[in-house]
């Protein structure tokens, strides 16, 4: 079992969380706590980069949904980037591929003033 590691990157368009490891029952709470602490402003887009995600079960899905609720409450958007194939399969199975904005990758920091980052690359 790989430990979950979350690193945060603040961009003008909104924060990016790079998630590596496993999102399972024992570890998904860490992502929920991390997203609950995130300061989000209306119009921002929270990008959750799942390129390093090795495993995601239903509690991981719940953590992603909690992040979405938190973003919506702040008037922000949420997008999932670089979703691995097996996690995408689960998202599709439960219909969430219709709910989350999916990005091919987390993209680069567009620098100061890049306010449109959240809209870019919508899958």
């Amino acid at each position, binding site marked *: *079992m790989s430990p979950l590691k979350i690193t945060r990157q603040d961009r003008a368009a909104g924060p990016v969380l790079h998630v590596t490891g496993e999102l*399972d*029952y024992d570890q998904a709470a860490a992502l929920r706590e991390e997203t*609950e602490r995130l300061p989000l402003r209306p119009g921002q887009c929270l990008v959750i980069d799942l390129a390093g995600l*090795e*495993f995601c*079960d*239903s*509690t991981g*899905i*719940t953590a992603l*949904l*909690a992040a979405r*609720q*938190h973003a919506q*409450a702040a008037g922000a958007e949420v997008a999932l980037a670089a979703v691995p194939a*097996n996690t995408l399969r689960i998202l*599709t*199975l*439960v*219909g*969430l591929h*219709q*709910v989350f904005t999916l990005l091919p990758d987390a993209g680069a920091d567009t620098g100061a003033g890049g306010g449109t980052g959240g809209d870019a690359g919508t899958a």
Partner: protein
Amino acid sequence: MMCRTGQDQGPEPSGKENEPAATDAEFSALLEDSAEELYESAPCGYLSTLMDGTVAKINNTLLDWIGLEREAVVGRKRFADLLSVGGKLYHETHFAPLLRMQGELRGIALELRTRGGGRLPVLVSSAVKQSSEGEPLLIRTTVFDASDRRAYEAELLRRQQEAEKARAEAEAARAEAETARLQAEADRARLADAFTVLQKSLLPDALPAVPGLEAAAYYHTASPDRLGGDFYDLFPVAGDRWAFFLGDVSGKGPQAAAVTSLTRYTLRAAALHDPEPATALRTLNTVLHERYAGGGDPRYCTAIFGVLGPGPEGGITVRLASGGHTPALILRSGGRAEYLPTPGGLLVGILPTAPFVTAETVLAPGDTMLLYTDGLTEARTGDARDSLYGEDALLDFAAEHAPSSPHTTVAALTTLLEGLGDGVNDDTALLALGVPADDPAHRTPPPDGAP
């Protein structure tokens, strides 16, 4: 001459000769002078009595301890009169008879009465002096002050009592801890009982007997103290139609159980109002979304809801809708296994309105439809527990076993789950519905059977 010669040798050696002489004199004087002195002033008491105990001789040390004049004691008192009441009694019942029998006693603990009514603990040794004919003449007794020893013994006793008290306290603490442990065990057992009762309330006690249908169910609890969120049911709706559902609520524990309960009773009520599967799921979606959306703690479920009706040629029609749930698996009488896909159905409860996908099939005699929760398809397999059992593996497993009755199918999957062991880290519910084969002994594949 010799002496003279010796004297003539000078005065110096005479000084040398005088010194040992003086020492000897002092030494003998000490011996002579101290015989009586030693008796009188020895650091222990000396006493001689007649055979009846009357004091004949007593030294000053002992007189000083008892605080009496010699005249008041000698010829007037017996040894026993010098003792405390208890000592006197002991002397008469044990000491004196034993002494007469044995002729000697050593180190007997007694108490002397002292001046002013006090008591002095002593150790007494006595010996009988006998005549040459062996007749007892008198008793010689030594008396040692044992107050230091008594104090030492008292100290020993006190230490022993302290140790005993500490031991008793440790024992009491241990007993208290044991009581607490038993209480905790009882509490845990009560909690486990409560969990079991609650868990049972989320599932039907037994599946109803449905004409023309065989039904089997199984519930695997991954962890006994984490209430599971899986649920299923089978119940009549209207006329000759029956409804069924199976699903999985997000999360674990009492909160998940509350969602499960809400889900189960909402689906039952919705089905009575309108048994159209997608409608029942939409009702559930509305209820869950209103109750749990926006709380920061998303609660949702996946579910398959379906309705059974009479079908052609003894078969049963199935119309079901899925909200984000793994597809139903059908084991055909001809030996095929296939999923009944319901792609695009969304988790129930996360959006105000959600798409649900409906599918239909007919279960012919010998066909079995299996509904399952993701405890099965998300079970971790492999030595490193790093891969999932998955839907493909389940399809292969079903194809190997088809055709298979609901009970046989559930039994085979139960064995499979037990084999996966701790790889099954989520609860698993199974519900299998099937039409009994016309004649299982002579079952033949239909013309359009196995591929």
